[in-house]
């Protein structure tokens, strides 16, 4: 229900102004971008798609920040990574 899928804007969709084409893993769907009115949207931008509407524009910087947070875990993180690299789990 609250399912939201990140998709890449690939261009406007035919028909209505509010419609844009979004791609997810090579799969395309028309979504309504009316909820992002006033935001700059360009092909290559990513949006979060929920029940046929783009609900939010995804920020690449913030996405990186989450991953960067992991680096900040410090020693426990390093230890764990080393341990993992050493073992070979099939």
């Amino acid at each position, binding site marked *: *229900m609250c399912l939201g899928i990140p998709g890449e804007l690939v261009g406007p969709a035919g028909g209505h102004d509010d419609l844009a084409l979004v791609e997810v893993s090579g799969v395309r769907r028309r979504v309504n971008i009316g909820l992002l009115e006033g935001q700059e949207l360009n092909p290559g931008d990513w949006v979060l798609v929920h029940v046929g509407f783009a609900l939010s524009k995804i920020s690449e910087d913030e996405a990186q920040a*989450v991953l960067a947070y*992991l680096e900040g875990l410090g020693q426990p993180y390093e230890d764990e990574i080393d341990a993992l690299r050493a073992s070979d789990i099939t």
Partner: protein
Amino acid sequence: MRFVDEYRDADRARALAAGIAARCRPGRTYAFMEVCGGHTHTIYKHGLEDHLPPEVSLVHGPGCPVCVIPMGRVDDATHIAGQPGVIMTSFGDLLRVPGGTGSFLGAKAAGADIRMVYSPLDALKIAKENPDRRVVFMAIGFETTAPSTAMTVLRAAAEGVPNFSVFCNHVMIIPAIKAILDSPDLRLDGFIGPGHVSAVIGCEPYAFIARDYRKPLVVAGFEPVDILTSVHMLLGQLAEGRCEVENQYARVVPWQGNPVALEAIGRVMRLRPHFEWRGLGFIAHSALAMAEEYAAFDAERVFDLPGIRVADPRSCQCGEVLKGVLKPWECKVFGTACTPETPIGTCMVSSEGACAAYYNFGRFTRDRTRGPAGEREVSRA
């Protein structure tokens, strides 16, 4: 998949697991509620509890939109679906939700024209394609979904689609969280905040939780790494004695939410004085109805509804599960009389319901002494 696979990485998850374990104070346990059913789903679908130390437990909250629909509303919807010429549309999750007079699936088998849609816009399209039928969209969902319904109604009004209406069951998360915080029988150490609701309402509305109830809250994304990160952040606040609203999901959630979405809701809907939540009873100002101005699109006015309150089955303990007071398997009918195939309560229907998630994905992840081929011991080592 971009913005997905990188948050499902096993190395990152294990690193976070180690970090989480390291942040647990010996001898203390932590209970965090994931408010949103989407989080519940992720936790079980990915077996995330395997990455949590025994000290940390996740408590499932009320944020499953299907789960909170009371039986009377399902009966009202089924009643509408049975009116001549009606095409009832809804999200697939609703098909098996039991009302007092059966489910949509049963009504459909008995002859009602009930169709699954992916989007409310699809319902509007069906209305335009069937001008001689009355097409009703059974709208459910939290603030995440309400804007889509609102936008669809605005489009129906703009295009003049007279045979379209909405049976509005949108609910709001803040009153529900407040109800839980006010309930005496629950000990929680913090909240994993609902990411997609926050994409609409922003982070500010949670401030009272940190301020008045002294519980930290981290707005979280829906991938495994998001949730583990949020748990790590909650433990960090607790360790540091902070109590704040933090935003783990900033890639999607602006601090102020989506003003266009909020405006659309504001135009098309109005706050109900109170609304019944399944298992939780009536909660004031917790749901949305269609605004007077859009009465023509309001199924509650277009149709005569029985509007009868139906008591939940005696054996159903969904209320306790939704409040996080009971674990799913503590319900007496869990997994025996109540299964995803034959649900008694709503929590067993939607894949975001705690009972369904636990039954379908989770039943071997906790407290099992024997692991499959000894693997779980390994992965927790």
